[in-house]
């Protein structure tokens, strides 16, 4: 039966015997197709089909994360990395602006906490939009507030999306998908 199964898999199995006719060793020969890199990395992560999609969807997306709260920053960073993003995390508005102004670091998306001390998210976004187009980098604001006027103010300044904290993985994925899709980055 084993032989039949293996032969159906385009392989073979046989037993080599010694001079006295006793089984000495068994050899199993199977053929495998080398999968492409993308397929391999997809299957390497996660268990459900849904999860494996999220790992490849944003692969290589360069994201700059600015949040002064250590816990939030670590959690959000891990979340973005789980979605396949390449994340640089900073803890102040100034570091954020500094990172963006360096030409080599071309971040596609900035995930920005609105309530940071010294220079808040609103100010950071305003300065980014002063020198950069509306679509590069994309700015996703993070706020604990559910108030409409906060959302309106964000959009007025030129941010592309507003996410309410605490952030869930699916929420972040959905928002990233939305803002990238709108700019025709075709995800």
């Amino acid at each position, binding site marked *: 039966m084993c032989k039949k199964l293996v032969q159906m898999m385009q392989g073979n199995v046989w037993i080599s015997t010694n001079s006295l006719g006793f089984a000495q060793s068994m050899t199993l020969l199977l053929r495998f197709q080398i999968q492409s890199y993308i397929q391999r990395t997809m299957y390497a992560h996660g268990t459900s089909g849904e999860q494996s999609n999220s790992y490849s969807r944003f692969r290589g997306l360069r994201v700059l994360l600015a949040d002064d709260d250590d816990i939030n920053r670590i*959690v959000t960073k891990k979340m973005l990395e789980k979605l396949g993003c390449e994340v640089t995390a900073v803890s102040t508005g100034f570091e954020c602006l500094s990172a963006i102004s360096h030409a080599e670091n071309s971040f596609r998306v900035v995930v920005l906490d609105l309530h940071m001390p010294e220079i808040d998210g609103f100010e950071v976004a305003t300065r980014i939009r002063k020198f950069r187009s509306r679509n590069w980098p994309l700015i996703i604001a993070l706020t604990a507030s559910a108030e409409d006027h906060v959302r309106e103010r964000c959009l007025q300044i030129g941010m592309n999306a507003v996410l309410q904290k*605490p952030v*869930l993985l699916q929420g972040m994925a959905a928002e990233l998908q939305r803002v990238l899709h709108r700019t025709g980055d075709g995800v």
Partner: protein
Amino acid sequence: MERNPMRRQLQVMRKSLFDQGYLDEQFVQLEELQDDANPNFVEEVVTLYFRDSARLILNIEQALERKPFDFNKLDGYMHQFKGSSSSIGAKRVKAESTLFREYCKSGNGEGCMRTFQQLKKEYATLRKKLEAYFQVARQAGPMETACRPK
């Protein structure tokens, strides 16, 4: 049904934390972020939370010793505290934080002090329970998947 007795105990502890309202959905989110690259992610984040927030609690305590109360400052501290508590799914602690902020906004000093005492109690209880939980977790070894509490 979990065969390993340690894992069963862990599941019981975990269910209890959710059923009794100590933790919410956000904790499950942390569990979902844990993977082979960061196998102790949840414990690390929770440990960091208790370390960081201890400072905030001290700040609030000191601020409550200065009369008259600077409600803006108090609210500011609590906003931060609520934020991180919320990120780890500390449901009861978060609820007390919300209440505290409401008292700040209405300038109710008595309410602030009362709520803060309650908050500290919840915070201490949560800390103890989570420490016990992670102790068992370390002994039990990795769980298969994060499961949503029914």
